[in-house]
């Protein structure tokens, strides 16, 4: 078995005195889609940001592509071709869509800007129409598309997506999941996904993890998790899918 692309070992992180991650183990292998599900406040988004050192893990190790990045400065981690469409989208509201995409491309000077631009605008034709509009004027769905497109502009090896379907109409959410699937199947992009929309996210994933209170409580293939009664009871009931 080959080394996983991203390997998180016993990671603990906290905000002030509040422990958010209490010793998390998780692997993402090259070419996989891995989904992490969990309730609000379980620590999913914190885990994604901890990969980038914000907040920094105070125990454990994060290994990416064979290198220990646990203590590396955030901007240098980003330059190792890990991209994130973070919680809250965080697009630059006072920059145009085009400039947002330029920001995404700047992380990887070797990438061909024009070619990547064509690629992401092909995935998200809506953005092509909005190219010179300010980011802040986009609708929620468009902002989500921009956040993902911006992350893709640097030609990442590993893409972290934090709740890409949050607040989107079901049809648009489905489009986004389709695009993630396509990126993975066609371009072999490795994706690590955090979702509350557990049904769709697990269906899409090769493997999944369940997080409760800063700890991983279950792991398995996406299909396997979908079948488990505990997962069904906690994350799939209530007509969310």
């Amino acid at each position: 078995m080959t080394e996983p692309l991203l390997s998180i070992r016993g990671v603990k992180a906290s905000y002030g005195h509040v422990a958010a991650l209490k010793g998390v183990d998780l692997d993402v292998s090259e070419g996989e889609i891995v989904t992490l599900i969990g309730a609000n406040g379980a620590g999913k988004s914190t885990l994604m940001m901890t990969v980038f050192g914000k907040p920094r893990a105070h125990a454990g190790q994060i290994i990416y592509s064979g290198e220990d990045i646990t203590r590396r400065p955030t901007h240098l981690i980003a330059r190792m071709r890990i991209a994130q469409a973070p919680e809250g989208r965080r697009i630059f509201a006072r920059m145009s869509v085009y400039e947002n995409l330029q920001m995404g491309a700047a992380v990887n000077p070797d990438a061909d800007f024009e070619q990547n631009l064509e690629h992401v605008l092909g995935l998200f034709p809506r953005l092509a129409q909005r190219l010179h509009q300010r980011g802040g004027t986009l609708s929620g769905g468009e902002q989500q598309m921009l956040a993902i497109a911006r992350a893709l502009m640097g030609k990442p090896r590993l893409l972290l997506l934090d709740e890409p379907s949050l607040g989107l109409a079901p049809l648009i959410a489905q489009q986004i999941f389709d695009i993630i699937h396509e990126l993975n199947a066609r371009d072999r992009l490795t994706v690590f996904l955090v979702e509350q929309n557990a049904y769709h996210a697990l269906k899409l994933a090769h493997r999944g993890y369940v997080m409760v209170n800063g700890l991983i409580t279950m792991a398995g293939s996406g299909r396997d998790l979908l079948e488990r009664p505990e997962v069904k009871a906690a994350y799939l009931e209530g007509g969310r899918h």
Partner: protein
Amino acid sequence: MEVFVQQLINGLTLGSIYGLIAIGYTMVFGIIGMVNFAHGDVFMVSTFIALVTLLIVTTWIGISSVVIALFIVLVVAMTLTSLVNWAIERLAYRPLRGSFRLAPLISAIGMSIFLSNFVQVAQGPRNKSVPPLVQGEFILMDGGVYQVTLSYKQLIVWAVTAILLAAFWYVVSRTALGRSQRACEQDQKMAALLGVDVDRTISITFVMGAALAAVAGTMYLMYYGVVNFNDGFVPGVKAFTAAVLGGIGSLPGAVIGGLLIGLIETMWSAYFSIDYKDVAAFAILAVTLIFLPQGILGRPDVEKV
């Protein structure tokens, strides 16, 4: 009418200098949310760097061409002042980042006191003057009693300001560096996630602000011919007023605010009492804060999330 036109010319000249200083305030505020109270003194330091360089260039090296001498003085002042401001940021502000909000502000006030006292001790408390460098003027209107003139000095101030503002505007709005600066201004965490070295970008912002302050300092020295260790305070506060009036955080706002403050001050001096010109300028600050807290070009705080 002649008086008005003349004061318009004088006001635009003074306003150019305020505008150049105001950009340093507004940029630093934009990127780290801090009012850099030492910025006026950085400007003052630049006037002394320009003074010393000018004396070296003209008396020791013996360059007699005013254009070449001014050019050298400008470049040296911009370089050294940038270095000074870079060091200030590293020593006095960066270690306090992430501390409580008032900490860097207090540190900036300390820096301001340090700089003016240092220059007072090193250069003496008295006014330092240079002989007039550029003489001559165009007579624009001749009303018999009163001539409207545009001096070569004023023309130089306008031209240098316009050229450097254009260059600066290009960097901020069209280059990758400027984009990183604007990204840090909007969301430092996200900028870091996209590979931007936030600390370095902040350093560069201080360097750029200082370079423009040094342009203002060189122009100030050439225009007035007299500098004093105390000259950082009042122009500094007026430039800050300009930044607030234009909308702090907004670069065109800083320039517009600077020009307005310059005009208000000279018009007030012409039509009312020259003794009260500073009162007029600062009354503007108070009125702006009450009725237009976001300034002329400032953005309202509401933004779509």
